[in-house]
C-alpha cells in the first residue's frame, strides 16, 4: 500500500520560555486508507507533532513527506496550497466561520482551490453534507447549529477537496458520547469505503481502540 505521510527524524524545540526538546527523533508512516490514532498524556507532544505534520508549523528539524514529495523547506505559499488540496482538518473546537452559512463554510476551501466551477463546488458541498446527514442545515448560519452538527460540518469542510489525509486534533474531545460515536462512525466509513487516510490525536481510549493502529507517545518519543 502506498505511503501518504511520512516523517523522518523529526526534532522540535520550544525556545520560549526555556529551551525544551519537545519531539525527539520521530519516525513513522501513514499508509493509504489507514485509520491511525495518536495517544499520550497531556504535554507529551502529540498536538505539536500533528501541527508539524499539517505543515502549519515549519520550525522543526528532520524531513516530512506528503505523497512521497518532500514538504520540508517549501515556501509558505506552496504549503498553503498543499494544505488546501491534500489535507483536511477537524479540530476539537469546531472552528467554523460563524458569520457564514453552513454551505458557504463547506465550500470555502474549494473556492480557494478554484479547480472547479461554482456550481460543481456547490453540488459537491451538498453531496458531502448529505453523506453526513446534515444537508437540511445547509442554509443555516454556522453559529446557529449544535456542537455535534458543527463537528459534522467541519468534517464536510475537511472532505470538500478530496484530500489525501484527514487530520483531527481531538475531534471528539468536546462532544458527548453519542456524538463522539457518530463522528467515529463517519471516520471509519470514510476510511473503509473511500480509502481515506486518517490521523487523529485523541485522549479517548475507547475511540483509539477502535482505530486500525494506535501510535503511543511519551515524552516526545513514539513508543509503539
Amino acid at each position, binding site marked *: 500500500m502506498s505511503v501518504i505521510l511520512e516523517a523522518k527524524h523529526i526534532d522540535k524545540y520550544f525556545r520560549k520560555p526555556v529551551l525544551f526538546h519537545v519531539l525527539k527523533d520521530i519516525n513513522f508512516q501513514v499508509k493509504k486508507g489507514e485509520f491511525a490514532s495518536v495517544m499520550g498524556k497531556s504535554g507529551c507532544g502529540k498536538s505539536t507533532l500533528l501541527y508539524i505534520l499539517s505543515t502549519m508549523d515549519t520550525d522543526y528539524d528532520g524531513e516530512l513527506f506528503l505523497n512521497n514529495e518532500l514538504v520540508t523547506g517549501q515556501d509558505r505559499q506552496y504549503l498553503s496550497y498543499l494544505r488546501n488540496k491534500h489535507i483536511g*482538518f477537524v479540530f476539537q473546537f469546531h472552528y467554523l466561520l460563524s*458569520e457564514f452559512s453552513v454551505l458557504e463554510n463547506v465550500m470555502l476551501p474549494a473556492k480557494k482551490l478554484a479547480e472547479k466551477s461554482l456550481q460543481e463546488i456547490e453540488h459537491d458541498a451538498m453531496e458531502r453534507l448529505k453523506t453526513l446527514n446534515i444537508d437540511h442545515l445547509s442554509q443555516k448560519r454556522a453559529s446557529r447549529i449544535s456542537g455535534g452538527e458543527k463537528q459534522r460540518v467541519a468534517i464536510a469542510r475537511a472532505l470538500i477537496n478530496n484530500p489525501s489525509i484527514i487530520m483531527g486534533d481531538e475531534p471528539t474531545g468536546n462532544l458527548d458520547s453519542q456524538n463522539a460515536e457518530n463522528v467515529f462512525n463517519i471516520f471509519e466509513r470514510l476510511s473503509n469505503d473511500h480509502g481515506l487516510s486518517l490521523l487523529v490525536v485523541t485522549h479517548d481510549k475507547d475511540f483509539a481502540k477502535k482505530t486500525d493502529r494506535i501510535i503511543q507517545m511519551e515524552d516526545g518519543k513514539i513508543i509503539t
Partner: protein
Amino acid sequence: MANWSVILNIAKTHLLTKIKQTSTAALGVTFGIGAYITLVCFMTGLNSMLDDLILNQTPHIHVYNEIEPSKKQPISLYDNVEGSFNVVHSIKPKLSQKKIHNALPIIKYLEENPNVRGALPQIKTQIFYIAGSIELGGNLTGINAIDEANLFNMGDYIVEGSAEDLQNTDNGILLGIGIAEKMSLKVGDRVQLSPINGGIFPLKIVGFYQSGIADLDAIQSFTNIKTVQRILGKANNYITDINVKLYDIEQAIPMSKKIEQQFNLTAMDIKTANAQFETGTTIRNLITYAVSITLLIVAGFGIYNILNMLIYEKMNDIAILKATGFSGKDVQLIFMSQAMIIGFVGGILGLLIGYGLASLIDTIPFQTEALPTVETYPINMNPLFFVIGFSFAMLSTFLAGYLPSKKAKKIDPVNIIRGQ
C-alpha cells in the same frame, strides 16, 4: 494565487455583519473628505476672489517712464578724477518727459509678439475735481474703455453705466464712487475738472467706478484717451503708460526685462509689483491643506483602530482560513480589501457631501461694499480637488489598513488553535 471573488466575498461578509463598525469607519472618511472638499472649495474660492480683486485689474507688465536720477553723474565722465573718491551732494532727478517716446509704434510692436494678449495705452494725470469753491485732488486715467473691459475686466468694477457708454460719449467720464458720494453726483450730471496747468473742463458722468478699495475710489476716475489729451493740450501720440497682458503670466519677468533693455523704459512685472500678495495666497493655501490633511489623518486613525479591533475579533477565523489553505497573503488581502471598501464608500459619500455643502455655501448671500461684483460666497469647484480628495481617501485607508492586515498575515494559526 489571489482568488478575488472568494476574498471579496469574505471581506463583504465581515463588513456587513459588523455594519455598525463599518459605517463608523466609513463615516470618519466621509466627514474627513467632505470637510476637505468644502474647505478647499471655499478657501480657494475666497483666495481667487481676493486675487482677482488685485490681479485682474493689474497689468502683467506695466511700461512707463520713471522719474529718477541719472545713473551716471557728470563727474564720472571726467577722466582727471578717475580713481579718486568723489562725493556728489544733492542729486536731482533727471529732467525727462513723462510721455513714452514713440509709444504708438511700441504698442504695435508689442501686439505682434505671440505671447502678448494685448497692449493698451493709458494716460495718467493729476487733476482737481471742482465743486463750487472746493477743489478735490484726484487722478484721471485716459483709457480705451472697451479694450480695458475685455483684457482687465474693467466691466466688473463699473457699478453704473458701462464701458461702451464711456467709449461712445465724447467728453464722458467714469467717476470713482467715492468722489460721486462726496460731491452728490448722479449719472448724467456734469462734473468740472481742472488739470494742474489750469483751465476748467466740464465732463458728463456716464457711470461710476468702484474697485472695492475705498482710498482708490475716492480719487480715481476714467475717461477716453482723446479726452485726456484734449484736457492736457497734448498731441494724440501722448501716452504715459502701456499695460501689457500676456497669455502666460510666467513670461512676465523675462518679457519685462527685454522691454526695459530694448526701449530704455521702466517695465514693472506683476510678480515684483505684488510680491506680498502672492505670499498671502501661498500661506492661505498652506493653512487649508494643513487643516484638511489633519482631518483625513484623524479619519485614517479611525479606520486603523476599527480594523485592528476587527482582526482581534477574527483571530479564530484567520486561523481557520490559514489551516484550510488560505495563505498569509490571502488573509492580508481580505483585510486590505475591507479597508479599501471602507475608503471607497466613505470617500464617494464624502465627495457627495462636500459637493452638497459647497453648493449650499455658493447660494448663501454675501454682499459687501468692497466687492461690488460678488453676490454670494465664492466657491471654486475645481474637479482636481475631488480627484485629490478621493485619492487621499484611498491612500489613507490603504495605509490604515496595511498595518493591521500585515499583522493578520503574520498570525500563526498554530498559536491560536492551541491556545484554546
